């Protein structure tokens, strides 16, 4: 599944990135490397962007970027 499909409160683990070039680099810099645990904290009122907890920081990502991250849902 894609990262934007994680529902509020749910967790998932990063499997791979589909992004290339600068966006890929940016996502990696934010800590989205394979194996990273992410949690959907909440969606903004209009549904986009979404706030995620990534490696100890809260980071808002648009669906556009979160759609480039393949994740596996993780029960916690």
């Amino acid at each position, binding site marked *: 599944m894609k990262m934007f499909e994680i529902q509020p409160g749910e967790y998932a683990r990063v499997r791979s990135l589909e992004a290339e070039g*600068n966006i890929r*680099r*940016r996502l990696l*810099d*934010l*800590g989205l490397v394979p194996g990273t645990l992410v949690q959907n904290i909440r969606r903004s009122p209009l549904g986009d962007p979404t706030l995620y907890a*990534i*490696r*100890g*920081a809260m980071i808002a990502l648009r669906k556009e970027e979160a759609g480039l991250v393949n994740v596996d849902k993780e029960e916690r």
Partner: protein
Amino acid sequence: MGLTNQSSGINVLRERFNVKSNLEQPVIALAGNPNTGKSTVFNALTGLNQHTGNWPGKTVLQAQGTFSYKGVEYRLVDLPGTYSLLANSAEEEVARDFIYFGNPDVTVVVGDATCLERNLNLVYQIMEITPKWIFCLNLMDEAKRKKVYINIEKLSEKLGIPVIPTVARKEEGLTDLKEAIAGMVRGELTTRPRLVRYDREIEEALDYLVPRLSSVIGERYNLRWLALKLLDGDQQIINHLQAQFSN
């Protein structure tokens, strides 16, 4: 700190970055992730009141100030907070260019002790650019409140870099930080950075490039990093080199 002919060439670069330093003042750069209290450290050291606040891009234009410690006046440059130095944005480019081309005497990386892990990306990137840096681990009080305990000695040993724990808001640890800065400027405090080693192909390409860069540019800059950027096809760096070494 021994300002030689070599570093007066660097002074030209500093002028380009608008660092108002006279030759006597060692230049100290402050870098770090956003929201680690970098500007609080800046204010605590300089006694200035650069605005601190919690929003991105607050320090796009670098703030500068001075502080004195044991009779030496240091110039402190507050760089924009970034997660990376790969120059994805204007802020990252400013921070990176200053640390690399501006060649500060010491770079202090301010990290957030409450989420150490996410600061390490920047830490390893800085490590590739310069060996002259200190890791200031700030927000130690908040980390304690979150029951995060950090083995400072072990971290320092693993990184090969001095690590100074601080609570800048309460001015805790600042004397240690100043002492470390002074020691590094005088050349008494040295580092053994643990550089990232890449795959064989990349290391071989570096072995090929570095001596060739050396014959054109000399040893003034860290050529391993430069070669990595060239392999990366970093257009900004290529432009910089063309502007500086076109003759």
